[in-house]
C-alpha cells in the first residue's frame, strides 16, 4: 500500500510538472494559429492546412472554441473534484474553481453580459453542478465510487480509490479527440470536436444545436469514401471516432449531415420490408395498427427477426469487371447464396458473408465506375479498407427498392435491437423538439444564443465533460487539462473579454479538407487566453492551478510521447487561468431555470436570454429533458467587444444553412407509437365478432 501511495504522489507530482511546463509554452500561441494547426493536424493527414483554415468560417472557429473551452472547464472541474477527493483538502477549493470557469465561447457568443466578472455565487454554483454530473457521466468519477465496494475494508478501499482515481486520470489523458468538419447539404460546413468516447447520437445532438434544424429522425451523419465512391450512414449508437480513424491521411472522405429517410424507414413502414412481396396497394394502405403489430413481432420479441429476403443480385466477380447473377438469401447469420444446381434448402446454402466484421455501404455511380448493370449497388467491406481490394464485395440490385430492402435488411441483421432503440431515442428527441419549438416559436428570435454553450452544459454532450483534452494526433496527451475552471458558464464568459484577452485569434482548428483532425485540446486554451489567469481573474486563482496541473500525467505506458505534442506550443494551463468571470449572474436569467423542462420563456430582449434558459436547464439538473434545441441563430447582436462586428456577420452567414424546421413529422411519429393499446382492443373486438359469427354458423 505504501508503495501505491508513493506512486500516486509521484504521479501527481509529475503531472504538475508537466502542466507547468505546458503553461509556459502557452504564451506564444496566438500569432500563428495555422502553425499550431499544422502540428495538430499532423495527426491525421491533411493536405493543405492553410487552405483548410481559410475554409473554416468564423462561426466554426467560434464554435470550436466554445467546445474546447467547455472541455477545459469541465475537465478542470473534474480535476478539482478529484483533488478534493484525494486530498483531504477542504471543499473550499472547489467552489472557487468553479467560478473561474470562463468558458470560452468567446467570440461567437457575444454574450451581452458585460457584467461578467462577478463571480456571482449562485451562478457559479449552478455551473458547477452542471459540469460535475457531466463528468461523472463520461467517466467514472473517482471519489464517489468508493461507496460501492463496501464489502472491502474501508481503508483498503480508500487506497484503491485513490489509485483508481489516479489511473482514471491517466486514462483520461489518453482520450483522443478529433476535430471533424461536417458538410451540410447547402455546401456549408460545421466544425466540431468529437471525443473518442462519443457516439453518433451525441454528435448528432451537437449538430442539432449548431444547425438549429428540426431534429427529425431522418437526420443522419454519413461518411463518404471518395475513392471507392461509397456512402454509409452512421448508426446512432456507433462510436463516432472509430470509423474516422480508419481514413487514410490523404483521404478525401467526408462526413455529411443530412436527412436520410431510409434511416428509420423500417419503423415507419415496416410492411415495406417485412411484407415486401405484397402488392404495392396493400403496402400503401397498411393500417397503423398492422404496422405496429409488425414492429412488435419483429423487434419486440426475444429475438430480432430479419426480413425474409431472397432474390437474384448481381455480384461483381473478384478482380474482374464482369458481374454475374446469383440467388442470394438474407439470414440473421449472414448473406448466403444458392450454389448452382442446388436447392434452396438451408443446408445447401453457401455463406457469402457474415456481418461481424463488415459494414454495408451504398455505392455511387457504379455503372460508370465498375460497369455495373445498374446504379443501385451496395458494398460490404471491413471499415478499415479504404481502397480497392479483393476483400470488398460489390452487389448490384435491379432497382432502388431492392437495394433499400437489402441494405436495411443487412442493418437489421447486423445491429438488431440497437436500431430500434436508436429509433425510439431519435423519435423522442424529435417530439420534444417539436414541442419545444412550437411553444417557443414566438420568442425564438431572441433565442439565438450561442448554441455551443448549451452544449457544453448539457450533460449528454461528451465534449462538455470530456474532462481532459488530450491528444493530438495519435495519442498525444498533451494537455490534459487546463484548469480552467469549470463549467460552462460560457455565456457568462464574456466574450468580449476574449477579445480583450490576449489571444484574439481563436485558433480553432480548422478542418482541413479531411475534416478530421485531431487536435490536442490544449491548443485551444492557449489561444483563448494566454493571459495569465491570475492576472485576469482574481477570484479564480486559487483553485485552478493545483488541480489542473496534474493534467499531464505521464506514465510512460500510455503516452507515447508524440513528438508533435512537444512542439505544441499551446499550453493548456493558460486556459486554466482563464478568467473566470462568471458572468452568469449578471445575465438576466429570465428564465430561471427552474429546471422545468419547459422551454425557456422568452427572455428578455432579444439577445441574451436564450442562452440562459438552457443553462437553467442543465444547471437545474434536470437530466432527462433533452437539451432544448437551440433555436435560432441570431445572436450576434450584442455588442460586446470589437470583434463583434465581424463575428456577427460571420454568424449570420452561417445561419442560413439551417435546415428547415419541420416539427410535425416528429410529432406524428411519436403519436403513432402511442396507439398500441387501441389497436389491441380493436383486434380483440374483431375476434369476438368473428367468433360470434362462427358460432352462429355452426
Amino acid at each position, binding site marked *: 500500500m505504501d508503495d501505491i501511495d508513493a506512486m500516486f504522489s509521484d504521479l501527481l507530482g509529475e503531472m504538475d510538472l508537466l502542466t507547468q511546463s505546458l503553461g509556459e509554452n502557452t504564451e506564444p500561441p496566438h500569432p500563428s494559429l495555422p502553425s499550431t494547426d499544422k502540428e495538430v493536424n499532423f495527426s491525421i493527414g491533411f493536405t493543405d492546412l492553410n487552405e483548410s483554415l481559410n475554409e473554416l468560417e468564423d462561426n466554426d472557429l467560434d464554435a470550436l472554441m466554445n467546445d474546447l473551452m467547455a472541455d477545459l472547464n469541465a475537465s478542470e472541474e473534474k480535476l478539482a473534484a478529484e483533488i478534493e477527493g484525494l486530498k483531504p483538502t477542504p471543499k473550499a477549493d472547489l467552489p472557487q474553481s468553479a467560478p473561474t470557469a470562463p468558458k470560452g465561447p468567446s467570440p461567437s457568443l457575444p454574450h451581452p453580459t458585460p457584467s461578467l466578472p462577478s463571480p456571482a455565487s449562485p451562478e457559479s454554483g449552478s455551473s458547477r453542478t452542471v459540469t460535475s454530473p457531466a463528468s461523472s457521466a463520461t467517466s467514472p468519477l473517482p471519489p464517489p465510487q468508493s461507496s460501492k465496494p463496501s464489502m472491502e475494508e474501508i481503508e483498503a478501499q480508500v487506497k484503491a480509490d485513490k489509485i483508481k482515481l489516479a489511473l482514471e486520470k491517466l486514462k483520461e489523458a489518453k482520450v483522443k479527440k478529433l476535430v471533424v468538419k461536417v458538410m451540410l447539404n447547402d455546401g456549408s460546413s460545421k466544425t466540431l470536436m468529437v471525443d473518442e468516447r462519443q457516439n453518433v447520437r451525441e454528435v448528432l445532438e451537437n449538430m442539432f444545436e449548431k444547425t438549429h434544424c428540426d431534429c427529425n429522425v431522418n437526420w443522419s451523419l454519413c461518411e463518404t469514401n471518395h475513392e471507392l465512391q461509397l456512402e454509409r450512414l452512421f448508426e446512432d449508437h456507433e462510436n463516432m471516432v472509430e470509423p474516422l480513424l*480508419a481514413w487514410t491521411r490523404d483521404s478525401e472522405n467526408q462526413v455529411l449531415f443530412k436527412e436520410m429517410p431510409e434511416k428509420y424507414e423500417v419503423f415507419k413502414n415496416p410492411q415495406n420490408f417485412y411484407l415486401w412481396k405484397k402488392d404495392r396497394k396493400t403496402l400503401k394502405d397498411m393500417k397503423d395498427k398492422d404496422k405496429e403489430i409488425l414492429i412488435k413481432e419483429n423487434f419486440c420479441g426475444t*429475438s*430480432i427477426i430479419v426480413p425474409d429476403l431472397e432474390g437474384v443480385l448481381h455480384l461483381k466477380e473478384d478482380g474482374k469487371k464482369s458481374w454475374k447473377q446469383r440467388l442470394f438469401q438474407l*439470414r440473421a447469420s449472414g448473406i448466403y447464396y444458392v450454389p448452382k444446381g442446388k436447392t434452396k434448402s438451408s443446408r445447401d*446454402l453457401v455463406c457469402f458473408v457474415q456481418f461481424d466484421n463488415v459494414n454495408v455501404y451504398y455505392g455511387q455511380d457504379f455503372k460508370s465506375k465498375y460497369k455495373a448493370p445498374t446504379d443501385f449497388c451496395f458494398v460490404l467491406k471491413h471499415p478499415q479498407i479504404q*481502397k480497392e481490394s479483393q476483400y470488398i464485395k460489390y452487389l448490384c440490385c435491379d432497382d432502388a427498392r431492392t437495394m433499400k430492402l437489402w441494405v436495411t435488411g443487412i442493418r437489421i441483421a447486423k445491429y438488431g435491437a440497437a436500431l430500434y432503440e436508436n429509433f425510439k431515442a431519435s423519435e423522442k428527441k424529435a417530439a420534444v423538439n417539436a414541442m419545444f419549438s412550437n411553444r417557443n416559436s414566438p420568442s425564438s428570435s431572441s433565442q439565438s444564443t450561442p448554441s455551443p454553450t448549451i452544449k457544453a452544459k448539457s450533460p449528454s454532450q461528451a465534449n462538455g465533460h470530456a474532462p481532459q483534452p488530450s491528444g493530438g494526433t495519435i495519442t498525444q496527451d498533451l494537455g490534459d487539462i487546463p484548469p480552467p475552471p469549470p463549467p460552462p458558464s460560457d455565456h457568462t464568459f464574456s466574450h468580449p473579454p476574449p477579445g480583450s484577452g490576449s489571444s484574439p485569434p481563436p485558433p480553432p482548428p480548422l478542418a482541413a479538407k479531411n475534416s478530421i483532425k485531431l487536435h490536442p485540446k490544449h491548443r485551444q486554451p492557449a489561444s483563448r487566453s494566454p493571459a495569465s489567469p491570475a492576472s485576469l481573474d482574481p477570484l479564480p486563482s486559487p483553485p485552478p492551478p493545483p488541480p489542473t496541473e496534474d493534467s499531464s500525467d505521464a506514465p510512460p505506458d500510455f503516452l507515447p510521447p508524440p513528438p508533435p505534442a512537444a512542439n505544441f506550443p499551446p499550453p493548456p494551463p493558460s486556459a486554466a487561468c482563464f478568467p473566470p468571470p462568471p458572468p452568469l449572474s449578471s445575465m438576466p436569467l429570465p428564465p430561471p431555470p427552474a429546471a422545468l423542462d419547459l422551454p425557456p420563456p422568452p427572455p428578455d430582449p432579444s439577445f441574451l436570454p436564450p442562452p440562459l434558459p438552457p443553462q437553467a436547464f442543465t444547471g437545474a439538473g434536470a437530466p432527462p429533458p433533452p437539451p432544448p434545441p437551440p433555436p435560432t441563430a441570431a445572436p450576434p447582436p450584442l455588442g460586446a467587444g470589437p470583434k463583434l462586428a465581424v463575428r456577427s456577420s460571420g454568424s449570420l452567414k452561417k445561419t442560413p444553412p439551417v435546415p428547415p424546421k419541420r416539427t410535425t413529422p416528429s410529432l406524428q411519429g411519436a403519436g403513432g407509437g402511442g396507439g398500441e393499446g387501441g389497436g389491441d382492443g380493436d*383486434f380483440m373486438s374483431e375476434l369476438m365478432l368473428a367468433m360470434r359469427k*362462427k*358460432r352462429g*354458423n355452426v
Partner: protein
Amino acid sequence: VKLIQSACSCFRMAVWDLSVTVEDLGADAPPVTLSVTSDLHVGGVILKLVQKTREFDWSDHALWWEQKQKWLLRTAWALEKYGIHADARLVFMPQHKPLKLGLPNGKTVQLRASFSSPVFQTVIGICRMLNIRHPEELSLLRPVEEKRKKKDKDITEELYDLTGVPLSSVSRPSMYNGMPAHFVDSAEMEAVYKMLSVTQPPPAPEVVAKQYRPASVVDKAHINGRWLDSSRSLLQQGIQENDRLWLRFKYHAFYDIEPKYDVVRLTQLYEQARWAILLEDIDCTEEEMMLFGALQYHISKVAQSEPQLLASTAAMDDLESALQSLEVKLEGESSSASEMLDNMTAPELNDYLKIFRPKRLTLKGYKLYWVKFQDTSISYFKSKEESFGEPIQQINLKGCEVAPDVNIAANKFLIRLLIPSPEGMNEVYLRCEDEEQYAQWMAACRLASKGKSLADSSYQSEIQSISSFLAMQKTKSGSHGKTPAADESINTHSLVSPRYHKKYKAKQLTPRILDAYQNVSLLTLTDAIMRFLQIWQSLPDFGLAYVVVRFKGSRKDEVLGIAPNKLIRIDLGVGDVVKTWRYNNMKQWNVNWDIKQMAIEFEGNINIAFSCVTAECRIVHEFIGGYIFMSTRNRENSNTLNEELFHKLTGGHEAL
C-alpha cells in the same frame, strides 16, 4: 308446489339398481350395486358408494361413464339429467392418475396428472408441479413409437418419480428458495429438480443418429397429428393410467421470458430447441450449425462448472446469487484498481514464432521471428536481441479476423490472421510450437481483434477455454474414436446433426466449432442459453408447424405451415412458399366437421378452405386459435390465464 312435485316424482320414480365399478377395490372386485332413483344427483350416488365401501380418501374421486366416455363431474345433476339408466357402466376412480411424461430434455418423469379436466388444465397442473411458467405454450402429444431392437429392451430407462407430490401442493404451490416446496422434501426430489433445471450434457452421437429424423416437410407434418385436444380430458382421449405422453412447447410464441423465474422453462426450451436442431427438425445453414454446436459446448461446460446452479438445496436462489456474484466479479474485474494497474504495466507476450505472409509473393514459407504482443498489436524482430530497436513490422490486430488452424495429431498450431488495412486484408499466419503457446497467443489475438488488450480480465478464461477445447480434440484423437471414453470430453459430433458426422471427421469439425466458439466463449450460462434460443428463433423456419392439407379445388396435397403470426402455403413440388396469410388480417375461421374442412376468411375478400390430411381438422383449428390466443396476452393480465377465451378460440363449436 315443489313439495308436490318431489312427492310426485318419488312416487313415479322407480327404484333401480345402478352398478358402479370402484377402481380402488381392484380389477377383479365385482361392481358395487346401489339402489337409486333417477332423480338422485351424482353427489348422492357418490355418497352412497362411499358409505358402502371401506374407509378411504375419496376426495379426488369421480364417476366416469364408460359407454359415453364421459366424466360425471357435476355432482348436482340428477342421474336423469345425465341420462343414466340401469345399463350404464360407471366407474368410480381418482381423477388424478400417474402418467409417464417425456420432457423436452429426453428424460421421463412420472407424475399424477388430472385425467378428468380438459388437457389445457391438465397441462397447467403439470407445469405448476414442474415449475414452468406460461403453461399455455405447452401441450401434450402422443409419443412417436420408438423402434426398439430386442437387445435394447432390457435397458430400463430412468424414471423420475413425482407421484408422491401431494395434489394440494400442486394446486397452490408454496415456494421455497424460489422453487416449489415439494422439491425440497428429499434428496430424490432435489435430484428431480436438478434434472429439470439443468441442461443435459450433449448426447452421444450414436444416440442422435439412432433417433428418428424427419427427412422432408411431409415427415415433419406427421408429428403434428399427435397433439391432444386441449378441450377434452385425457381419459376421453383414450389415455390410460401410466401411459406415456410427451410434454412439449407447442406454441412457439414465448412470452415474457425472465431467467430469474424461468429456470426450468428456459432449460426445457433450450433442450427442445437443441433437439430440433440436432434432428434437423428445423433447417439451418452450416455456419449456423457450427454456432449452435459451439453454444451447446459452452452451455454444457458452464453448466457443469457452475455447481451453485446444480446445488440441490436452493437452486433458484443460487441462480440469482450466482448471477449476482458473477456480475460483481465482472464489474470488479473490469474496473478495479488492480486491473487498471495491470493495464498500465501492460502485460505482453514475447516469444519466437514462425511467421508466414502468404500474400507476399515470396515462397519462403515460415520464418522464425521474435514476436512481441503488446496491447492490441504484434511486432516482430529478427531476434530477441534486436527487440529493443525498431520492429520489422508492427501490426495492429484490432478488427482483424482470427481463425484457428489446428491439428493436434500433426502438431500443427496455426493462427490465421486476416488483418484489415486501407488496401484490403492482409493475411498473416503465426505458427506456434505447442498447445500452451498456441492457447496464449490465440487468446491474445482474439481479444485484440475485439480491441481488448492482454490486460483484459477475460484473457485467462479465454486461454482456458482454448486449451480445454484443444484437450477435447486430443482425447478424441488419442482414443481413435473407439469409445466416447471419458465423460470429461465431448465429442464434437455430439454437437451437430448427423449430416455433419458424415461430412466432417471430428478433427475437422473441431476447428470449425472452435471458430464459432470464440464469439460465445465468455457468455454466462443464462446468456448462452438465451443466445441459443435467439438464434433458433431467428431461423427462417422457426415456429412453423406443418400439416399436409388439400386446398379446396386443388387435386394435390400441399403443406400448410402454421407460424406464430401467419399461415403459409407450401408447394410440395417446388418446396417453396406460395402464399402467406397473416392472422391479423383474418376475419373469421370455421370448421365444417362433416366434411372436415376448414375455411378461413381474410380481409379483402380472401377466402381459403382446405381439408387436413395428416392431422385432424381439430388440431389445425386449435393451432390457429391458439396462436391468436397467444397474441392476446399482455402485461396487464399476464398473471391470469383466460382459459375461457382459449377454449373459445381453439375449440370450435364442438366444445361449446
